């Protein structure tokens, strides 16, 4: 509740309040310097808040030392003991909290089974790939017996393709073991695909907090819409408010019709349209002349960058149903979107550009 942390006068976390349910998988999504790691370290008890209180099961743990918190912190740079085998590395935690050697080895073996690395128990860390080392670090967290896993970029050091495979396994592991996890990442796809709920952190404050589909479909602000996945933002002025339609005028006189929002005429606004909702060669209600400026191949989709008559650029993401390019650079086509796909935001105090800065 209201947890703040400053380092040498720099505010790393600013009155952060949130709750995590038992058994929940929470992802904290934010850019470098947003306070993600600080948040985990506070919960782990490795650092103390300047103000505010952290509760576990309803009880304040502000005065409880890290070892007694029942939370396992798995840092980004996982340090394994190079001279110990995989099994010994994992058994180290149980041993140091006073388990008998036999019991510690049993706990370690079970943890290794969970991360599917029992077959490498006798190997030394340097004999393993980065992905395997990461899983060993995770096994150490599991063997600690903690109910809460604090994962700092757990897949950060891995190859992108391997991350895809492991992120599903990670969630499965947490769920099967009945644990609660707080997983910090700057990868929005990772957050969307593993989390029960996502917290968007920016400059030490919570920008948004909710289920993945809620955060994606109904973002609280421009920054969330930007961070959780590819939206176009255009500046405009409210021109007319009619019974069921609001007309917004963009630069160069382009007009956009949207459902009615509580807006006032002449108000400055930002409209947001997700890339996948920008239609090509369309007769949508809002459609404009444009020229294709760039075509970007992304594997399962293509992104088209189009220039409108007023010079604004708009991006369209087309998920592939066919392999061929539909349009080429230089093509003149109608681009547009339906009114239901227009998001409207208040004009940010410091301007759009500043609002989109992710750090």
């Amino acid at each position, binding site marked *: 509740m209201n947890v703040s942390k400053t380092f040498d006068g720099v505010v790393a976390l600013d009155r952060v309040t949130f709750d995590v349910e038992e058994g929940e998988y929470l992802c904290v999504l934010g850019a470098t310097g947003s306070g993600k790691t600080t948040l985990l370290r506070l919960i782990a008890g490795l650092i103390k808040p300047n103000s505010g209180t952290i509760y576990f099961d309803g009880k304040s743990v502000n005065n409880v030392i890290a070892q007694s918190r029942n939370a396992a912190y798995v840092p980004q740079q996982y340090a394994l003991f190079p001279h110990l085998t995989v099994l010994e590395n994992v058994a180290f935690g149980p041993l140091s909290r006073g388990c008998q050697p036999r019991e510690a080895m049993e706990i370690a073996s079970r943890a290794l089974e969970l991360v599917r690395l029992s077959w490498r128990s006798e190997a030394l860390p340097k004999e393993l790939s980065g992905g*395997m080392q990461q899983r060993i670090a995770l096994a150490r967290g599991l063997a600690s017996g903690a109910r809460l896993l604090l994962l700092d970029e757990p897949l950060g050091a*891995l190859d992108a393709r391997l991350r895809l495979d492991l992120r599903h396994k990670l969630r499965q592991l947490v769920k099967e073991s009945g644990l609660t996890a707080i997983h910090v990442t700057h*990868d929005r796809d990772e957050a969307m695909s593993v989390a029960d709920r996502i917290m968007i952190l920016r400059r030490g404050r919570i920008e948004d907090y909710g289920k993945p589909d809620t955060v994606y479909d109904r973002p609280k602000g421009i920054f969330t819409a930007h961070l959780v996945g590819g939206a176009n933002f255009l500046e405009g002025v409210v021109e007319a408010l009619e019974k069921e339609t609001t007309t917004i005028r963009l630069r160069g006189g382009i007009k956009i019709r949207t459902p009615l929002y509580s807006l006032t005429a002449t108000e400055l606004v930002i409209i947001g349209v997700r890339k996948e909702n920008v239609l090509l060669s369309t007769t949508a209600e809002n459609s404009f002349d444009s020229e294709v400026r760039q075509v970007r191949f992304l594997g399962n*989709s293509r992104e088209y960058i189009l220039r409108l008559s007023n010079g604004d650029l708009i991006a369209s993401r087309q998920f*592939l*149903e066919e392999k061929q390019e539909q349009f080429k650079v230089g093509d003149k086509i109608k681009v547009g979107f339906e009114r239901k796909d227009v998001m409207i935001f208040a004009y940010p105090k410091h301007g759009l550009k500043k609002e989109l800065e992710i750090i």
Partner: protein
Amino acid sequence: MIYGNIIALDNVTLRIEDKEYVCVIGPSGCGKSTLIKCIAGIIHPTKGSVLIDGLPMERVSIEDRGIGYVFQDIALFPHLTVRQNLSYGLSVRNAPPTTITNVTNEMLDLVSMRERSTSYPNELSGGAQQKVAVGRAVATGSHLFLLDEPLGALDALVRTELRYELRKLAQDLGLTVIHVTHDQEEALSIADRVIVMKRGKIVEIGKPTDIYHSPEQLFTENFVGETNLLEGTIVEVHDPVCSVKVGRHLINVKAHGKRADQRVVITIRPEFVSINESTQGWNCRIKEITYLGGITQYVARDEYGLELVAQQPSSNSHRFRVDDKVIVSIQSTEHMLLFDYPVEGLEKETSLE
């Protein structure tokens, strides 16, 4: 000026054209960083030679190869500001002051660091430092660039923006670039050609669309983007198609000269698998649904336990629920690829570690 570069590694000859932008991908440990270090002259190849502009590089030192490079953990000069770091290369070469100022300003904009130009490296985040390193290397004016995970330390959004800027810069300045990355999408989106490596060897080289849609190797198909792998046996061949038995299903696919009784693997990308309630296909139940924003991913399981992954745009897909009965169809021969069953087994062939 660079007219053509011939680069060899481990008995494999790789030729990179002038002004080409090549991305190298492969699982960690595949040798992609070693390749780039050989070209840079940091490591000397035990056999074979590296040629730049047709000239062998054996006796040419790192400094004299005229190469700009950025590695993932390059160190900036800690006692110099961002601006001074960016202008360092030009200053030591006695470039005219106006050129230094112009190029440095351009670099500050490129890496979005104009507001931090008077900061020292230790005042910047790791990602911001790396951006300055990219800018500094670009500012040196070399024409051949080796980039080893140049964007690896950056935040996802910054990384996406910066890759296009990097690509555009290379194009505008006429640079030849060899860019090693662990991010397949990064490679597909900016490369002229993609080199796929595995265990020290080049698996294949091709244009991004070919690498993604019609790879020659099964490894590539699985490594570059997700795919469904269906093991089966050819039942009969009616050129140009053949029937493959996969589980209890018969799938017709282009034969490509394969014979009856051959063990094969059919692949199909999740975006070409469709889920619906009406058309012909396999009877399945939905086992898992993952909402990814613009797309939704489904795992469907047929009555015999065979699983297929499908991806559909979230907007035009009916919102199914877990356990719903659905029809899954993959009966479009054009979207399926046929590979020989790997000699070392499917698991080993597609292993990512």
